[in-house]
C-alpha cells in the first residue's frame, strides 16, 4: 500500500537509523532510503524475499522476528518499523516489548479489524472477512491475533506506551487519530499507523 509508505516516510526525520522488521521484498526500505536517506536494516523470514533484498543491495538478515529480535542491542535504532505483521505473531505483546527495547521509537501499522467492511462482513454475512488488506480466508490466514485501531490504542494506554502520533488510512485519505475521534476512525480506517515510544 503506497499510501502507507508515504505516511511512514512522513513520520521519519532524514538520515535516521531504521530497522524494518518483516521487511518483505524491501520495497519500504527502498522507498525510505530514496525519500529520507535513512540507514536501513531489514529482518525477514521468507527466503525469496531475503534474496530479493540482497539483489537490491539492501541489508537484510534472514531470521524470525518472533525468536531472533534478541540479537539487536538496546536502543540500537532510531526507529523500528513493523508494517502489517503484528497480528501474525504468536506473542505480539512480547514482540512489541522487544521493538520498544531496540528502537528509540517504533512505528506499527495494522490492518484494522474494526473497519466497517470487516464488521459488516461478519454482522450481515456471518463470514470471516476477506478484504484487500485482509486477503486470506480463515483457514490459510497467517494472522493469529487480529486487532482493531481501538484495541491497539487501548493496549498502549494500558501498558503506558506513549502514542506520539496515530494515523488512519482509508483509501487515499489519511487523518490523524486522537482520543476524541477514536470511535469514528476505528470505523472508517482500513489501516492504522502508530508512532509509539
Amino acid at each position, binding site marked *: 500500500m503506497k499510501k502507507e509508505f508515504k505516511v511512514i516516510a512522513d513520520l521519519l526525520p532524514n538520515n535516521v537509523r531504521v530497522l524494518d522488521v518483516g521487511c518483505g521484498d524491501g520495497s519500504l526500505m527502498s522507498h525510505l532510503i530514496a525519500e529520507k536517506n535513512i540507514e536501513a*536494516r531489514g529482518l525477514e523470514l521468507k*527466503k525469496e524475499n*531475503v*534474496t530479493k*533484498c*540482497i*539483489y*537490491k*543491495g*539492501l*541489508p*537484510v*538478515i*534472514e*531470521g524470525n522476528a518472533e525468536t531472533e529480535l534478541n*540479537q*539487536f*542491542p538496546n536502543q*540500537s535504532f532510531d526507529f523500528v518499523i513493523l508494517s502489517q505483521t503484528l497480528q501474525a505473531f504468536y506473542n505480539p505483546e512480547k514482540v512489541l516489548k522487544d521493538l520498544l527495547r531496540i528502537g528509540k521509537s517504533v512505528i506499527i501499522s495494522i490492518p484494522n479489524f474494526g473497519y466497517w467492511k470487516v464488521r459488516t462482513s461478519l454482522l450481515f454475512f456471518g463470514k470471516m472477512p476477506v478484504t484487500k488488506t485482509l486477503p486470506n480466508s480463515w483457514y490459510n490466514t497467517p494472522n493469529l491475533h487480529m486487532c482493531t485501531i481501538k484495541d491497539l490504542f487501548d493496549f498502549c494506554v494500558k501498558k503506558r506506551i506513549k502514542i506520539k502520533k496515530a494515523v488512519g488510512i482509508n483509501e487515499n485519505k489519511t487523518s490523524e487519530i486522537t482520543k476524541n475521534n477514536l470511535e469514528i476512525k476505528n470505523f472508517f480506517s482500513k489501516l492504522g499507523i502508530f508512532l509509539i515510544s
Partner: protein
Amino acid sequence: MNYKIENIKTFNVSKALKLDCGQTVKDFPLAYETYGKLNKSKDNAILVFHALTGDQFVSGINPVTKKEGWWVTAVGPGKAIDTNKYFVICANVIGGCMGSWGPKEIDKKTREPYGLNFPVVTIRDMVKAQETLLDHLGIEKLLCATGGSMGGMQLLEFCTIFPNKTFSAIPIACSTSHSAQNIALNELARQAIMADPVWDKGKYLAKNVQPKNGLAVARMVGHISYLSEKGMQEKFGRKLQEKADYEFSFDANFQVESYLRHQGSTFVERFDANSILYITRAMDYFDLSKHFKNGLIEAFRNQKTKFLVISFSSDWLYTTKENKDIVIALNASGADVSFSEIKTDKGHDSFLVNETEFLKTLKGFIDSMHVKFKNEKRI
C-alpha cells in the same frame, strides 16, 4: 605432493612482516593468480581467500594439477562471480604448498626444506602477507572480498585489520574461532600424519619421500566433516563397491570406503603433509576477538564494509549458529550486515558445489555492491 610447481605467478614480499609468533620475516614468495581484467576506475577487484586445502587456482584449469580450479562453480566467465566483469585475485596462503612461502620451501640458512623449522604462522600472518599483494597490483580498495571456511576466517581477520580495504565482504560457512570439535578434528588429521613413520618429524622431504598413508587418513577425516550425514547417506548408503555381497575382507567393501580412499590417495599427489600441520594449526589458533579487549563487538567497531554472511543448513563443521554469531556481533557494532542461510543437504562443502540458491545470492549481492561502489567512487 608429486607436482613440480613451475610457471606460476609469484610476488616477492619485500616488506618486513612481524609474525604473531614473534619472528620478523621479509623477502619471501607469495604465489597468486588473477582472472579477468582490472578496469580503469579500479572498482571491480574481488579478492578470494582459499580454504585449508585450496590454492590460488580458483577458476579455469589449475596449471599444476591440470584439474579444474577449486571454485569453478562460482568463479569464471558468466558465473556468479563473473570474470568478464570482475577482476578476481587469489593468493596461496603462507604455510601452503602451491608456491607461497611454506614448510616445503628451501630454508636459505640450511639449504634444506624448512620442515618443522618453518615458523608456526597464524591466520593474521596469512592475511597480512596477502594484503601486500594488493599494493603490488595497484588496488587501493577492493569491491569485494570473499572466502568460505578458512577463507572466511581470513576474510574476517582481513576486515578487522584493514577496516577500509574492501567495500563489501562475504564470509561463507565460517566462524570467529575454532570450537573444541573443530580443534579435535584437526588434531586427528595431524596425528594421522605424525603417526606415519615416513613423516620422521617433518624431515621426509630431504629424503624425497612422503607420509602418504598418514596424509591420506588426514584427508579422509576432513572429507567426512565436509559432508552432512544425510548427504552421505543419500550418496552412499550401504551400497557395496562393485560387489554382490560382503567380501569378508578389509578391502574397500562399501562405496563410502572406496570414496574416502580415493579422496585420500588423490590428495597426497597435490598436497604437502607439513602444510596440513601448519594450516590446521593456524585455524585452531584463530580467534578473532583475541586482539580486542572487549571481544567481537570491538573487533568490528568502525566497520565501513558491507557484509553478507552465508551459512548452510546442514553444515555441522561451521554451523548456522556460529555464522549467526558473526551477524549478531556485526549488528551490535552497528555494521551493515546481511545474512542468508541456504537450505541444503550438501554440508560444509555446499559452497564448492553447484548450489543454485547460494550462487544466486552471491551474484545478487556482488552485482548490487558493484553499483553502489561505483556510485561511492563517483562522489
